[in-house]
């Protein structure tokens, strides 16, 4: 599908039928089919400031950012064959943060919102619109504009999406299409993975536990082991999954799959040169197979390191993109009506998606802001989209100054997994402490 991106200013009459629209990118196509009231596919990034947010300055910053990112002012519409995103001439909502976290976006709404409470600014974005990387770039711009409004001088040479610049077409391209190569063999299907056997929380199920980790400690330990922080955390995740599995009763052990696999999203903007502000990430899935016996932590760490190195290789990533994009390009897939396609996508998401991995570790990396702005911010919290009933727990990570913040989003009743995780970090000389988040927090 081609973009029909017209000048936004000439099209802000809500009654006009010639609003700009664009097709969902390849990664976003699955989300409309799987979204429910509990599994909302909404990402949340929060910035906790040193002082209370000045509401008027913040509104001005959001208005300026809206002009810079017009491709985010869209709503989800249903076509006959696919969903698509259509321009919606509304302002981005700025609301008090006193409701549930990662709430579903209703029909006819924009797919992003700002939530404020005391000194916290949170951006919630639907995964249909963009991934964590794109959402963070947007929040970063809004934060810089906000502090500029508050009188903070931003260095001229600091790179960010300045409101006076015009957007480039590359920012709203479907980058998967650009890097798609035809005639690449498809990926071999993986076996089913182990899933945490915890019972589910009462509705509303989703709750979060924040773990504050010392950046210095984790950096030192990761460096000693010659791995990155992401690899280290994925290994800790797998080690804890193994621990949970080994404490199961013999009958449950027999029933459960013995393959433990962690999904680690990779920001493809770092691998392929792309400016896109829409979804552009893929997953690697390091695994351990407990049928081969007990793994020591060092063994897991080595294995995860090598698997990640191998899977983030450009050619293998290309193979993944080709699998995903290739299937959407097939004529028989394109000609299936949307309601049938939604059923198939939902089934595929369960069989090819969630059933193949036991957990998620997503790392946004270290936040880069001008020192003048960084001084005014205490920390960031990234919340991954609420996991479904099968996955139960996911972990999102973001680093800022001397603090690495882990956020465990969970729909399980028990917080055993989170506690094990913190205990393991502390035992390995990485000082960390956890706090349960209330409704109004972060």
């Amino acid at each position, binding site marked *: 599908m081609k973009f029909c991106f017209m000048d936004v200013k000439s099209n802000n009459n809500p009654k006009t039928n010639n609003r700009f629209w664009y097709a969902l990118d390849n990664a976003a196509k699955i989300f409309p*089919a*799987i979204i*429910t009231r509990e599994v909302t596919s909404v990402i949340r990034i929060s910035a906790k400031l040193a*002082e*209370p*947010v*000045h*509401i*008027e300055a913040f*509104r001005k910053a959001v208005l300026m950012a809206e002009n810079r990112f017009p491709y985010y002012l869209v709503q989800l519409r249903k076509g006959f064959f696919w969903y698509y995103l259509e321009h919606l001439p509304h302002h981005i909502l*700025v*609301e*008090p*943060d*006193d409701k549930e976290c990662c709430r579903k976006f209703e029909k006819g709404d924009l797919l992003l919102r700002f939530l*404020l*409470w*005391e*000194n916290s600014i949170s951006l919630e974005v639907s995964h249909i619109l963009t991934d964590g990387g794109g959402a963070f770039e947007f929040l970063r711009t809004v934060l810089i504009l906000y502090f500029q409004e508050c009188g903070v001088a931003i260095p001229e040479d600091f790179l960010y999406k300045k409101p006076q610049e015009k957007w480039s077409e590359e920012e709203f391209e479907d980058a998967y299409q650009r890097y798609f190569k035809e005639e690449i063999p498809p990926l071999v299907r993986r076996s089913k993975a182990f899933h945490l*056997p915890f*019972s*589910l929380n009462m509705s509303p199920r989703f709750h979060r536990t924040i773990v504050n980790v010392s950046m210095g400690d984790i950096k030192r330990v990761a460096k000693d082991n010659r791995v990155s922080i992401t690899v280290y955390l994925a290994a800790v995740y797998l080690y804890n999954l193994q621990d949970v599995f080994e404490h199961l009763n013999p009958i449950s052990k027999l029933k459960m799959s013995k393959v433990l696999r962690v999904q680690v999203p990779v920001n493809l903007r770092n691998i392929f040169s792309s400016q896109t502000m829409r979804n552009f990430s893929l997953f690697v899935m390091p695994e351990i197979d407990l049928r081969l016996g007990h793994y020591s932590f060092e063994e897991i760490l080595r294995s995860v390191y090598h698997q990640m190195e191998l899977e983030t290789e450009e050619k293998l990533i290309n193979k993944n993109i080709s699998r995903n994009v290739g299937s959407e390009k097939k004529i028989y897939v394109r000609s299936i009506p949307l*309601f049938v396609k*939604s*059923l198939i996508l*939902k*089934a595929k998401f*369960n069989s090819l998606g*969630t*059933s193949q991995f036991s957990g998620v570790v997503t790392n946004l990396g270290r936040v880069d802001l001008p020192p003048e702005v960084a001084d005014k911010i205490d920390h960031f919290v990234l919340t991954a989209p609420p996991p*479904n*009933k*099968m996955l139960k727990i996911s972990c999102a990570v973001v680093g800022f100054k001397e603090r690495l913040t882990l956020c465990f989003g969970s729909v399980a009743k028990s917080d055993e997994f989170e506690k094990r995780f913190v205990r393991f970090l502390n035992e390995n000389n990485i000082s960390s402490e956890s706090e349960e988040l209330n409704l109004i927090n972060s």
Partner: protein
Amino acid sequence: MKHCPNCGVALDENANFCSLCGEPLLERNEANLAFIETRRQQREDKLLTEYQKLSGFQKRRLFLKISAMILLSGIFITLIIDFVTKGDFTWSRYPVTVGLALLLNITMGTFWYCREILWGGLSFLSSAVLLVLLDIYSGNSGWGMQLGIPLLFAAYVTVFILIRLIRLTSQKGLNVIAYALLTTGILSICTDGIINLYKTDLVNFGWSLIVMASAIIVSLLLLYVHFRLKKVTDLKRFFHI
């Protein structure tokens, strides 16, 4: 710079209301103190009175209060009408006894929700007494003891097992419907047997076997779909309703 007393954001000095949450921004002086306190109280009350925020026990107690009001007023009105029209308590004995038994059961359910055996046992006793009383009112033909109580016992045992089974199930979906169907089948067999025993003094089964066979076939199909085909099946989403 002012700060909103509700959401805590900073506002311009001349603002009268918080532009984020709509809270009025008043100086804390003699004239405004009462209003500020009322707002604070209202906010807290709003949080407390939201039905979703009540605990399970609070919700059950609320249900008990409402049912007690309806049932007791119903009993009272029935008694008065009966007494005024007939000069005695005749037909009103039926609704009054049923109403009291119902109230007793709801009360037990409110306080002993988690103690199923105690609640189930006492509920069975009260319902058995109710049946015997109804039998006595209607001429004491003996159906209460011979037919009513065995049927009641079968119903209590099967439903009790069903509830236990559902509570033990971690993944609730089509399997719950399958268990309910199987329970219905078993209950039909019990009912058929008890009625035949009461009528002919012989234990034989007729129609209930057909019900049971159908229930088994459908349940097996549902259990297969639940356990083998899809783990996370949201029916609404699956059928795209």
